[in-house]
C-alpha cells in the first residue's frame, strides 16, 4: 500500500486494482499523463549530452517499454530503460552512471526504495570515481557548477620531472576523467591529423575515372550490359591506405605529467584508425592495444591504469626498446609501420645499449618519429647522453610546444608543421657535448 502511494506521487495517478487494497500487486501501471514521461525524456536528454546515441524514437520506445513492463523495483526499471536506450556495449558504463546520478538527484527511485525497503539504501562514499562519472554529471548539472573550481588534473604522486631514475618503482594511477568537451575536441583533432608519410600505395585498385590503368573487368561488365555494342574504357587507380601506427610512449616519472594526454591521444587514435598498436614503458614495457580498443575513453583509461604497473617510476628506455624489438617488432611492424616514440630521452642506465636498440627499431620500421616534450624549451640542447645516443637513428625529431592539451600533441605530429624536424641539425651540437 505504501508503495502504491509512492507511485501515485511519482506519476500522478495509478491505474489498477491495487487502490482498493484487495490484492497486493507487485506491478503498478504508471499513468503516461504524469511525470514519468517527462522524467524519461529528461533522462534521455542527459544521456545524449553525455555522448550516447539516444534519438527521439528510442525515448518513445523507452516510455512504451516502461508502460508495458511496469515497475517491479529499481532493477526492473533500470533494465527496462537499459534495454531500450543502450544499444552499444560501451554505453553501458555511461548509462549506469547516469541512472545512478539522475534518479538519485531527483530522489525518485531512491525514495521509492526507501519507502518499501526496511534497510536504508547503501550510500557509502566511493573512493574511486566510476568510469564516465565526470561526463555524466557534467551533462546532468550543466550550468549549475560555474563557480566550482576545476578539478585537479592527473594526480601525480611524486613530481620527478627532469630526473631519470633507473630504479623500478611500481605505482598505480588514477586519471581524471574525460569531459564530453574533451572527447569531442579529441575526435576533431585526430580527424584533422595528417601524419607525415601517412599513406602507402597498396596493390589493390579502386575505380577511378581519372586513373591511369585500364579496368578490364569493369569494361566487360558494362559492355555486356549494353549488349556488347560499345566497349567503353574504364579506369582504376591504386588504393592508398594508412600504414599501421605503433606508438611507444614513455610514462616514467619525468614524463608522468603527460601520461593522461598520451593515453587520451592513443585512445582517440585507436578509434579513428584501424591498425594502431599502443605501448607504454617506464621500467617495463606494456602493450595497451587491447585496452585501448574499449570504445569508452574512461573505461579504456581505467583498464590501462590497471594494466600498467610502473606509472611514474624510473626510466629504462634501452631495456624497454630491447624488449619491444625482441618480442613485438616482428609482430606489429610488418606492412610498413610508422613508429611514434614519445620520450624525453633521459636515460640513466646503459646508453650504448640504447643506441643499438634505437638503431634496430629504426631499421625495422618505415619511419621513426621521435617526439620530445623537452624540445619545447628554447634553450634545449642535446646534452643528455640518452638524447645523443638516440638522435642519429631517428627520421624526425619533433617538439611539443605545450603538452597540456591533446590538440597540441596532434598539431606537433602533423606533417604540415614539418620545419626543423630533421634530427641532423642537432647532431653537431650533440657531438660538441660528447667531446
Amino acid at each position, binding site marked *: 500500500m505504501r508503495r502504491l502511494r509512492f507511485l501515485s506521487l511519482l506519476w500522478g495517478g495509478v491505474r489498477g486494482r491495487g487502490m482498493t487494497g484487495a490484492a497486493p500487486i507487485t506491478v503498478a501501471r504508471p499513468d503516461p499523463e504524469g511525470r514519468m514521461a517527462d522524467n524519461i525524456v529528461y533522462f534521455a536528454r542527459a544521456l545524449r549530452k553525455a555522448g550516447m546515441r539516444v534519438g527521439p524514437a528510442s525515448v518513445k520506445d523507452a516510455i512504451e517499454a516502461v508502460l508495458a513492463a511496469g515497475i517491479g523495483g529499481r532493477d526492473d526499471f533500470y533494465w527496462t530503460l537499459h534495454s531500450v536506450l543502450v544499444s552499444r556495449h560501451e554505453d553501458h558504463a555511461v548509462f549506469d552512471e547516469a541512472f545512478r546520478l539522475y534518479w538519485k538527484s531527483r530522489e525518485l527511485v531512491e525514495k521509492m526504495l526507501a519507502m518499501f525497503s526496511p534497510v536504508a539504501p547503501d550510500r557509502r562514499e566511493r573512493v574511486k570515481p566510476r568510469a564516465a562519472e565526470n561526463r555524466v554529471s557534467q551533462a546532468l548539472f550543466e550550468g549549475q557548477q560555474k563557480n566550482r573550481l576545476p578539478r585537479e588534473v592527473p594526480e601525480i604522486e611524486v613530481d620527478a620531472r627532469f630526473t631519470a631514475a633507473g630504479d623500478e618503482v611500481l605505482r598505480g594511477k588514477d586519471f581524471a576523467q574525460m569531459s564530453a568537451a574533451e572527447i569531442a575536441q579529441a575526435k576533431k583533432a585526430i580527424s584533422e591529423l595528417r601524419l607525415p608519410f601517412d599513406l602507402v600505395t*597498396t*596493390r589493390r585498385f579502386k575505380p577511378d575515372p581519372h586513373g591511369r590503368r585500364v579496368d*578490364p*573487368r569493369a569494361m*566487360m561488365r558494362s559492355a555486356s550490359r549494353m*549488349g*556488347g555494342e560499345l566497349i567503353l574504357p574504364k579506369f582504376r587507380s591504386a588504393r592508398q591506405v594508412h600504414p599501421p601506427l605503433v606508438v611507444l610512449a614513455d610514462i616514467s616519472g619525468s614524463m608522468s605529467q603527460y601520461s593522461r594526454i598520451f593515453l587520451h591521444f592513443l585512445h582517440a587514435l585507436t578509434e579513428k584508425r584501424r591498425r594502431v598498436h599502443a605501448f607504454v614503458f617506464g621500467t617495463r614495457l606494456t602493450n595497451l592495444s587491447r585496452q585501448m580498443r574499449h570504445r569508452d575513453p574512461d573505461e579504456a583509461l581505467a583498464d590501462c591504469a590497471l594494466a600498467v604497473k610502473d606509472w611514474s617510476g624510473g626510466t629504462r628506455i634501452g631495456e624497454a626498446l630491447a624488449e619491444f*624489438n*625482441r618480442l613485438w617488432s616482428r609482430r606489429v611492424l610488418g606492412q610498413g609501420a610508422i613508429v611514434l616514440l614519445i620520450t624525453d630521452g633521459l636515460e640513466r642506465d646503459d646508453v650504448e645499449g640504447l643506441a643499438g636498440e634505437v638503431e634496430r627499431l629504426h631499421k625495422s620500421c618505415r619511419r621513426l618519429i621521435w617526439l620530445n616534450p623537452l624540445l619545447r624549451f628554447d634553450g634545449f640542447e642535446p646534452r643528455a647522453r640518452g638524447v645523443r645516443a638516440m638522435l642519429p637513428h631517428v627520421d624526425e625529431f619533433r617538439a611539443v610546444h605545450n603538452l597540456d592539451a591533446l590538440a597540441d600533441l596532434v598539431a606537433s605530429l602533423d606533417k604540415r608543421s614539418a620545419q626543423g624536424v630533421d634530427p641532423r641539425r642537432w647532431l653537431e651540437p650533440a657531438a660538441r657535448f660528447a667531446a
Partner: protein
Amino acid sequence: MTELKPRGLPQSIDETLDLLTASNYVADRALATVLFLSLRMKRPLFLEGEAGVGKTEIAKVLAESLGRRLIRLQCYEGLDVSSAVYEWNYAAQMIEIRMEEASGAVERSAMERNVFSEKYLIRRPVLDALTGKAGAAPVFLIDELDRTDEAFEAFLLEILSDFQVTVPELGTIRAEEPPIVIITTNRTREIHDALKRRCLYHWVDYPDAARELEIVRTKVPQANSRLSAQVVSFVQRLRQIDLFKVPGVAETIDWAGALTELDKIALDPETISDTIGVLLKYQDDIARIGQGEGRRILDEVKAELAAAE
C-alpha cells in the same frame, strides 16, 4: 605428373602419426592430434609459429601421403579476388563479342551467356580448391596469411565457413567436398579472432633435442652421427640465448647438410665461425656468437655429449 591415388583419411591419432612418419615428417603427438581432429571435424587447421619450424611442410606431406592435390595460395599484400579466386579472360571475351557481332546475330542475353561462360573463366587457387570430388578433396594450403591485409582475411572468413564462391555471371560454385584447409602464419601481424575461431589452432614450437636429432637423421641421413648430435645440441643451446632471431629447424637441417658437404665429422670453433651464416641471419647475433660465446657453447656441447657416452 604421376596419377594421384587418393587415400582415405586416418582414423586415429596413431594412424595420423604413422602417416606423417611414413612421409619422413617427424611430428610430435600434439601436432598429430590436432591434425587428426582437423581432418575428422573438417575444420581448417591454423598453424602459427616462427619461420622455419616446418609449418608449410605439413601441408605438403599431408597432400603427398593422402594422394591429394596440393593447392597453394601464397599470400602477399594486395592479394585480391582476381588473383586469388577467379578472373575472366578479357582478350578472349572481346574477340567473342566481335565474332558474334560479325556473324550478325546479336541477342543480348545469349551473348552474355556466351561471353561469361566457363570457357573464359580463369580459375585461381580458391576456386580450384572448391572443385574437389567426393573422397578426393584437395589439400588447400593458405601460406603466410599474415602477409595479406584484413580485407582479404574477411573474404577468407566467408570461404572457410561456407566453402562456396559466388561469381556474379555464373552463380554460386559450391564444393562437393570441402578441401582440407591448412593456414600458416609467421605472426608478423595478428590475425583476427573471428578467423581463428573457425579453425583449430596449433602453435608449432621448436622441437626438443631428441626429436630434432631424429629430424636431422631423417633429412640428412648422410651426416656423421656424432656431427648431427653436436649440431643439434649446439642449436638447442643457441635457442636458450637471448638472440634476435634464433635458428629454426630448417636452419639446423641446412647446417648439418652444409657441414656434411664440407666433409666435417665434428664441430670445431673455426668451422662454426665460418659457417655460422647458415644458422644466424642477423649481424648482431653473428658477432655475438662468433666472439667467444660460440666456443663456450661448443665446450658445453662436447662436455654434455662426453657425459652421455
